[in-house]
């Protein structure tokens, strides 16, 4: 086992023992079961829409809560409590501390989202709809957006406390979603004179990844709280599914935010 793997494993142990995370994982699984049960009360395509709507709401709202909770305390609390000092004084470098803290959170977030997705896919099987490929793709797309929010909060946590870092991470997610929605509106000619500003925002800011499944549900106004219909001046904005360029852009932003985490801890005093 490498030094970094040891640090990641130790962090995963600590995280998995936090009560709020255990409660969050269990609550997500319970809500996934509820989504399946609600879908079971419908038939045909309505049943499929119902399950996907419930799944999308759980993945976005539950996942975002988890991501912000994990990211907002990624670096600040361990720097203050003496945990980072213990590891740094014992031989770990600061980049290793950041890598351990961030990688363990990425792994945990992915594992929790995967656990929820497994329950949802099992529900789809039980309801006779087979494995839901579009939902699996949507799960991956949501996970990328959650990573943006978590890593933004983690980067902020090297400087500020958990509450401020969580608010920052949430704000970055809102900006990422707004960049996608506004670009779609601009492409439809609904923005007018702010076109240039919107395009600059789109090509500079992080973006969320819109899956084909949620784009279809949103177009039919069936997406629920995960993707309510977007309107500008009473005109419906049709948000298309993201292309691979947006996927690549989002991953690049994740890498950038990870580097910002390392930069933030580079000179921070450790207890």
């Amino acid at each position, binding site marked *: *086992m490498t*030094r970094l793997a*040891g*640090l990641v494993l*130790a962090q995963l*142990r*600590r*995280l998995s*023992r*936090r009560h709020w995370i255990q409660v969050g994982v269990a609550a997500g699984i319970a809500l996934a079961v509820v989504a399946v049960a609600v879908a079971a009360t419908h038939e045909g395509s309505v049943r499929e829409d119902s399950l996907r709507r419930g799944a999308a709401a759980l993945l976005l709202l539950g996942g975002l809560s988890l991501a912000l909770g994990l990211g907002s305390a990624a670096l600040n609390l361990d720097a203050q*409590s*003496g*945990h980072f*000092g*213990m*590891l*740094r*004084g*014992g*031989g*770990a*470098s600061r980049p290793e501390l950041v890598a351990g803290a961030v990688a363990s959170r990425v792994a945990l977030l992915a594992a929790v989202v995967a656990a929820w997705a497994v329950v949802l896919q099992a529900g789809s099987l039980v309801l006779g709809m087979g494995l839901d490929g579009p939902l699996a793709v949507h799960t991956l797309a949501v996970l990328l957006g959650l990573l943006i929010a978590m890593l933004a909060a983690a980067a902020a946590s090297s400087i500020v406390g958990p509450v401020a870092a969580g608010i920052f991470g949430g704000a970055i997610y809102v900006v990422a979603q707004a960049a996608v929605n506004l670009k779609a509106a601009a492409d439809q000619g609904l923005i007018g004179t702010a076109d240039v500003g919107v395009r600059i925002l789109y090509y500079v800011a992080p973006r969320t990844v819109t899956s084909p499944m949620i784009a279809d549900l949103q177009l039919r106004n069936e997406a629920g709280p995960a993707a309510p219909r977007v309107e500008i001046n009473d005109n419906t904005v049709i948000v298309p599914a993201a292309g691979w360029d947006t996927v690549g852009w989002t991953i690049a932003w994740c890498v950038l935010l990870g580097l910002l985490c390392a930069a933030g801890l580079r*000179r921070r*005093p*450790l*207890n």
Partner: protein
Amino acid sequence: MSGSGTVVEAEDVEVRYHGGPEPAVRGVSLTLAPGEGLLVSGSAGSGKTSLLRGLLGLVEHRGRAAVLGAPVGDPAARGRIGYGPQGERFASGLRVREAVAALAALRPGGRGATDDALARAGLSYVGYWRTSRLDAEGSRRLSLALAIVGDPDLVVLDDPWVLSDTLREIAAARARGAAVLVAAQRPGGLGPALGRRMTLVDGVAR
């Protein structure tokens, strides 16, 4: 910059935290050779912990400081320093054994040393306890185990309790050629065990 065989060499070291109006430590010079011990004493807030943190690279320092022949924070010395922090929350969320194993994994030749360190610190029987279950003495013993696991070349202890195990490990470390640096507000019997003493008053060595 380090003289041959010097474990710690610091000259005119200043430690100042971000935004602090006054440095926590200023103008401190010290040398520590293999097998030597040094007790840094002083009242609460005198700069003992800040000096240790500066020498370990936990906070930035000014002035010249080298540990094990390399500038503070240099990878060359990484893993050859054992650090037992003060406080009780430094290993929160871990079991006692996991905390010591995590540090052992960072030291060359440290793998397999976990059980030995737990036994020497008197923690074998609570190895699978969560660290939150430890009382104040247990936390000090855990800090000792973290500092000695893998038998590093420099043992740094912040606010240790004067236990027979502590005194024995200080003597053992010095006997095998390691240097020992200890900060303590109430040194008790640590002074004779370490041999040399430095007192800090308002961040300045007296």
